[in-house]
């Protein structure tokens, strides 16, 4: 039998390898901190206490994590079907139209929970719409989805600028943003959730959409592992030829998978628009679509992994903000470098330590499996 592809124990696959990658990322980041003349241990302490040391810090961390859960799930769903959706950024941005339209129309006539339902449906519809064209081009015309989704991010960026300036911006205002929503367009804060643990949310914009994100994670789990559609998506992702053999309508599955992916990305728009700013403004996605790729990779496309990875990245965002405040030598750009290192090691270099770890466990497991085979 071929040992190079020996199966790893679950805890190695899902815990040890990500942790090794993360440890190396922080080690390299620490060296960078040393180079700018700061104490890396002190920097780590500030980051961690900044992110988890107070109710407000936790609130911010989870607020950022909410973005990444949505975009991470979006990337993961497409990935299960063998599609690399780089367009979550644009899909989330366009999804904002659905949220803003619902809020601006109904915020003074309906309670928040009804507006929320409409805003969710709207954001999913617009996000899905933005994924539909690349999906169709991939399925029926063979245009590579990586290229088209990247292109669509740029188109989304300019489309949204047009929408903000010409549709959403009230007359006589300069900034590219809508008016502020009435209470009907505002999601409640989750202060009660933190107060259960005796924490004070302070000024953190931690809001209801976090719970939506957790629900979405569960729905994605059901979709991928408990539905026929998810089964077909995974077959295509693993073995397109077997999907053909099994009589699956691959083109249809590509389109549906991308629609779901786009809808999840679109949902992300709830968090900043309806949960924090109470208005739609330029660049509200702020790169979360791209971070979602790293989150999905690091979370191994599993909803639980994605939630954990999203919280890690939320910590990097929140802790990083604190760090640049407390250590003036470490600028905002420096934080981006550290985040970049985590993405590099956890995402792009995911396979760097894998062969060594696999070889180690293959050797370890050999004697055991031989004994089992003999029995």
């Amino acid at each position, binding site marked *: 039998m071929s040992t190079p592809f020996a*199966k790893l124990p679950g805890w190695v696959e899902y815990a040890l390898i990500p942790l090794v990658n993360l440890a190396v990322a922080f080690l390299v980041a620490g060296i960078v901190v040393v180079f700018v003349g700061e104490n890396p241990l002190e920097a780590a302490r500030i980051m961690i206490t900044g992110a988890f040391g107070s109710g407000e810090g936790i609130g911010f961390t989870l607020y950022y994590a909410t973005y990444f859960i949505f975009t991470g799930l979006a990337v993961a769903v497409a990935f299960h079907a063998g599609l690399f959706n780089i367009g979550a950024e644009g899909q989330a941005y366009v999804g904002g139209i659905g949220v803003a339209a619902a809020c601006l129309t109904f915020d003074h006539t309906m309670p928040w929970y009804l507006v929320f339902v409409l805003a969710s449906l709207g954001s999913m519809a617009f996000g899905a719409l933005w994924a539909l064209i690349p999906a169709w081009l991939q399925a029926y015309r063979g245009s590579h989805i990586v290229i088209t989704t990247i292109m669509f991010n740029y188109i989304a960026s300019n489309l949204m600028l047009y929408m903000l300036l010409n549709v959403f911006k009230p007359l006589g205002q300069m900034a590219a943003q809508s008016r502020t929503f009435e209470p009907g367009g505002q999601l409640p804060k989750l202060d009660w959730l933190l107060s259960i643990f005796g924490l004070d949310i302070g000024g953190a914009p931690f809001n209801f959409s976090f719970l939506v994100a957790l629900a979405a994670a569960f729905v994605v789990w059901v979709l991928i592992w408990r539905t*026929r559609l998810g089964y077909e998506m995974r077959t295509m992702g*693993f*073995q397109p*030829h077997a999907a053909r053999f099994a*009589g699956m309508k691959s083109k249809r599955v590509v389109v549906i998978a991308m629609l779901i992916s786009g809808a999840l990305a679109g949902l992300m728009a709830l968090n900043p628009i309806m949960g924090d700013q109470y208005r739609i403004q330029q660049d509200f996605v702020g790169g979360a679509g791209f971070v979602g790729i790293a989150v999905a990779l690091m979370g191994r496309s599993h909803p639980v992994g994605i939630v954990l990875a999203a919280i890690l990245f939320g910590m990097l965002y929140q802790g990083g903000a604190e760090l640049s405040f407390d250590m003036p030598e470490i600028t905002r750009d420096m934080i981006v470098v550290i985040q970049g290192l985590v993405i590099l090691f956890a995402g792009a270099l995911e396979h760097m330590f894998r062969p060594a770890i696999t070889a180690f466990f293959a050797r370890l497991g050999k004697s055991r499996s031989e004994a089992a085979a003999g029995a």
Partner: protein
Amino acid sequence: MSDFAIELKGIDKRFGAVHANKNINLKVARGTIHGIIGENGAGKSTLMSILYGFYQADSGEIFISGQRANIKDSKAAIAAGIGMVHQHFMLVENFSVLENIMLGAEESAILTKGITKARAELKRLEEQYEMEVDPDAIIEELPVGVQQRVEILKAIYRKADILILDEPTGVLTPAEADHLFRILAQLKEQGKTVILITHKLREIMAITDEVSVMRRGEMVATRKTSETSVEELAELMVGRHVLLRVEKGEAKPGDVKLSVRNLTVRDSRGVTMVDNVSFDVRAGEIVGIAGVAGNGQSELLEAIGGMRSATSGTVTLSGQPVDVTGPGDPADMRKRGLAHVPEDRHHTGLVLKFEEAENAMLGYHRDKTFGQSFLLDVDAMRKDAMEKIEQYDIRPPNPRLKTANFSGGNQQKIVLAREMERNPDVLIIGQPTRGVDVGAIEFIHKRIIEMRDQGKAILLVSVELDEIRSLSDRIIVMFAGRIAGERNPDASEGELGLLMAGVENKLEAAE
């Protein structure tokens, strides 16, 4: 200087459990054309890859012109004067002939000087070996035969004295093949040594001076071509070994369940893979399709299974016509009572990263037994999988285990259980025992016979002649996409071997 251009001593190579080359000894005389024949998987390509530096032998020595050579990569092989023309050409399609010939041998960063020199050299070579090609033609615009000539020129340009051609006529028309043979004769006259790898006996007889036969990783014989015959080579190639006869009674053929008429299938390159094939399979009989791999059997199976669209022809399944020229719909074929055990279980029949239970329903996953709504009933899946595991003695008996962790034989049983337990009318089976351990082979053969006795119509494709002979009630031999003949299972191996090698006419003439 040694009389032998190449001498291999004790070459041995394993890939995991597969012993691809067993203690191979070979001497190739200088200035001759030496044929190497053998069925697919006999180890010819592995041996040549070792000679060309793609693989390293586990043990053994290579001597080039009497000098011990350490060929660690293809660069070393080129330096030793070995050139290789691959079955699939290694040309840059949108480069010109001249650019392709120079590629990797430019000699300097500035091309101008090199181009002038290369052009002159190419012209000289063309004249010397009588191979006209337009140096400025773009590769993709040239016919396949000319592209092959460019490959040969490329090797000679790199000063190759020994030229290895791997199945060179596979993609050529008969006229192009004849032209190639004239070129090879010319090369020989000019003192080059040629090694020709093929499974076509006719070519061996037509062009070679000596021929070596490989079978199951071993070099079983070397003969002077003038002193051997097609019959002898066929026998050596197919091999005589104990036939594992499977216990089976007389077939009781019923109605025609699968009827194929004038089926023609072309692949994406437009090469005709299945050429006007017609046959019937009746309920309660096994029709075996014998043939050397690559003679259209795979495409035939895929076309019937709805995985590949045919160019023309008709297929009738239980009396109902099937649209074989359309895009194909394997799901629809299953509904009509066709079960398909594909040739390649790793890429087609199974998803190796799935749990066993997930594979046990692949293709039937829309069935209501696995859930009433859009949701899958995981318990029902695992229960169904467990029943099959017990019936087919699949080990380990764990429906939640990843499929990749099952042995080849057990993986094949997963596929067979899935396709057989649906009570199909027609069963098409490709390579049922490829890479399967001996114990499982017997079980699989028994199952196939049982299916026949239950009145299923079975079409069996295998490159293992023994398997075809012991299971089939009728044997159809395919060669070059056509049916070369139909025989009873008691036809001799030699006779079938000759049909498989496409020398039917010759045999009939002799009779």
